[in-house]
């Protein structure tokens, strides 16, 4: 018998997009539509268009392997995980899973605010498929991991969001399936908690269990996986060793124009009321371009609309190297006064713009990610690889030596040479 953990063969998933963009209909609508245009209704009874969220996906994985799945928003990553965790049924193709599958599609599913931490551990554990005896034997471990022992008998509606997340992750992390499917759990929580989650996940992997890991966080992908598949518009573009796949993902398939416009299909429904329109990089002459000079200031613009007012919104950028290392993160309301004066951002059309000073970057390609969130409340939209641009270091410090300068930044520092007598 082979050591196969899972085999995916030509899996595809087709969705209907309802034209009125509603997720459920009423009988009345259906009757009215049928009367209005009987022929159309006969041909296409739901009045919807079909599109393939995922198609022709085939791969296999052996026990003990950790596979990363990367791709931009709307590439089909989450759909693939949902199929493998049996939440949705594929439209075509076959997948075989050898072993119990546990999924962390979103931690805290089934948590009930009125129940206490203790009660939720048992409930959530049962929903995730754990036996009662299994939960009992791991109960102390779960409580210790989540660091909420004092509040274990308090209803979780009184928890801070951090406590809630810790407890939710703790339950999921103590599930011990042969195949673990993880989607973006690391997007939440503080740095310390994220570190703990990553640690737990590498434990899982080192115990010889199989992990499928979807994330936009390239440093997490690089730390946890040896191999990745890259999805784009529902198709599998490549399967390769992680460094190669991450490099491909971060640098390929960008428009070379210095601007990224968002199509409606790329924006997840839960981004509402935030709607990203475009991200741009401009040079000192206010021209949108992919090629930037390190010796001149670079302007980054995020253009978006808000359908309704948002309290505490912050729109910001991540800057990363092409290898996925963060250079910096910055938000438009980092200045406390700006944050106060913009505590409620009205519905409307905005551009958040910042200027990166001259002499910041070293030579190479850089990636801009954007994030729109209300701190500790909701992450409306995030795109870790919205756009990339090239930096040319002509005229930068030290260019008279033809050598590769290490490090992503190349600041012009104020060197003084003092001669001591």
């Amino acid at each position, binding site marked *: *018998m082979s050591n196969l953990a899972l085999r995916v063969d030509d899996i595809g998933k087709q*969705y209907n997009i309802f034209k009125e963009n509603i*997720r*459920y*209909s*009423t*009988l*009345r609508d*259906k009757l009215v539509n049928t009367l209005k245009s009987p022929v159309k209704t006969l041909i296409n009874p739901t009045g919807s268009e079909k599109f393939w969220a995922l198609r022709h996906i085939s791969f296999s994985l052996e*026990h003990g392997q950790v596979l990363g799945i990367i791709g931009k928003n709307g590439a089909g990553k989450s759909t693939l995980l*949902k*199929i*493998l*965790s*049996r*939440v*949705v*049924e*594929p*439209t*075509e*193709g*076959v*997948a*075989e*899973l*050898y*072993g119990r*599958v546990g*999924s962390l*599609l*979103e931690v805290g*599913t*089934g948590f*009930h605010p*009125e*129940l206490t931490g203790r*009660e939720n551990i*048992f*409930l959530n554990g*049962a*929903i*995730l*498929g754990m*036996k*009662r005896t299994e939960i009992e034997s791991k109960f102390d471990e779960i409580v210790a991991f989540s660091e909420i022992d004092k509040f274990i008998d308090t209803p979780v509606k009184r928890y801070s969001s951090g406590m809630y997340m810790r407890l939710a992750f703790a339950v999921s992390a103590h599930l*011990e399936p*042969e195949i673990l499917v993880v989607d973006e759990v690391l997007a939440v929580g503080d740095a310390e908690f994220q570190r703990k989650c990553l640690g737990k996940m590498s434990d899982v992997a080192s*115990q*010889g*269990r199989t992990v499928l890991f979807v994330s936009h966080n390239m440093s997490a992908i690089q730390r946890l996986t040896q191999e990745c598949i890259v999805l784009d518009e529902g198709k599998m573009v490549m399967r390769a060793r992680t460094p190669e796949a991450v490099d491909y993902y971060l640098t390929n398939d960008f428009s070379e124009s210095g601007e990224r416009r968002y199509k409606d299909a790329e924006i997840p429904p839960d981004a509402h009321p935030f709607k990203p329109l475009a991200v741009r990089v401009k040079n000192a002459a206010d021209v949108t371009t992919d090629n930037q000079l390190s010796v001149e200031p670079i302007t980054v613009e995020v253009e978006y609309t808000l359908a309704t007012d948002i309290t505490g919104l912050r729109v910001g950028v991540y800057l990363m190297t092409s290898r996925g290392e963060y250079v910096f993160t910055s938000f438009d309301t980092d200045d406390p006064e700006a944050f106060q004066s913009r505590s409620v951002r009205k519905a409307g059309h905005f551009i958040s713009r910042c200027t990166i000073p001259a002499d910041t970057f070293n030579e190479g390609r850089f990636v801009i990610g954007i994030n729109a969130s209300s701190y500790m409340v909701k992450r409306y939209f995030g795109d870790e690889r919205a756009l990339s641009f090239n930096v040319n270091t002509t005229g930068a410090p030290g260019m008279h030596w033809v050598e590769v300068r290490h490090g992503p930044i190349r600041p012009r520092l104020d060197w003084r040479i003092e001669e001591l007598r």
Partner: protein
Amino acid sequence: MTTNALDTRKTIAPVVIKPSRGWVGLRLKDLWLYRELVYFLTWRDLKVRYKQSVLGILWAILKPFMAMVVFTIFFGNFAKIPSDNVPYPIFSYTATLPWELFATALGVASRSMVSNSNMISKIYFPRMIIPLASVMSSVVDFFIGFTILIGMMFFYKISPTIATLWLPLLILLALITALGIGFWSSALMVRYRDVGYIMPFISTLWMYLTPVVYPASMIPEKWRLLYALNPMTGVVEGFRYALLGTTQSVSAGMILISSGISILILITGLFYFRRMEKQFADMI
């Protein structure tokens, strides 16, 4: 631990994921594997139901009791509806109890899929568990209300007979009916939210089609077997027979027809639910 996992994986057959077409099997074995989840969800529904309510579990008594008081005043005293030679209050309470069990179970089961949409779109488990657990959670209310009935039987000096042994079967019959319709309505409600508005109305109408405030003996003899096509007729008159010893309204044929219909509803409901199941996560 790891070696254990290695050993078991050799013996288990792979889980095969592929598109299903048309009518599919019931997979009752899955339901058995997840039996603990049924228990936990039932327990959650119970815990949550009366949180932040002052009277809490007393509501389980107050609802049927107040209904009985109103029925007695208007239908018993003013309208002088016959009650098969039993005092009207206990006549109506004996019927209100199973009726409330059915109506509550049906109400929560119908809404159950939509109110648990968060779980359905995130995690796999046999979806049938959700309506099942919500039906189970209404049984507790029934038993609390039952204590009042025992009190009333003492008060009216009605002693139970051997026929009382039928009760568990009759309770089961009410639950099967609620569950069967619950499968239909909860699956339909995922697609059409209208069901949420229709169900309370159907439930009210249905009560008047069921001999709760009047005896089935008021129905002309020749229509009575047709009347038994309403499975709750058999349940309610069966209850009166089992507890109060009334024989005017009930017959073996009535119970058989009611049971047959309710089993039919359950089986068709199960298959319909399973057929729609694959679309739930996409549509909910």
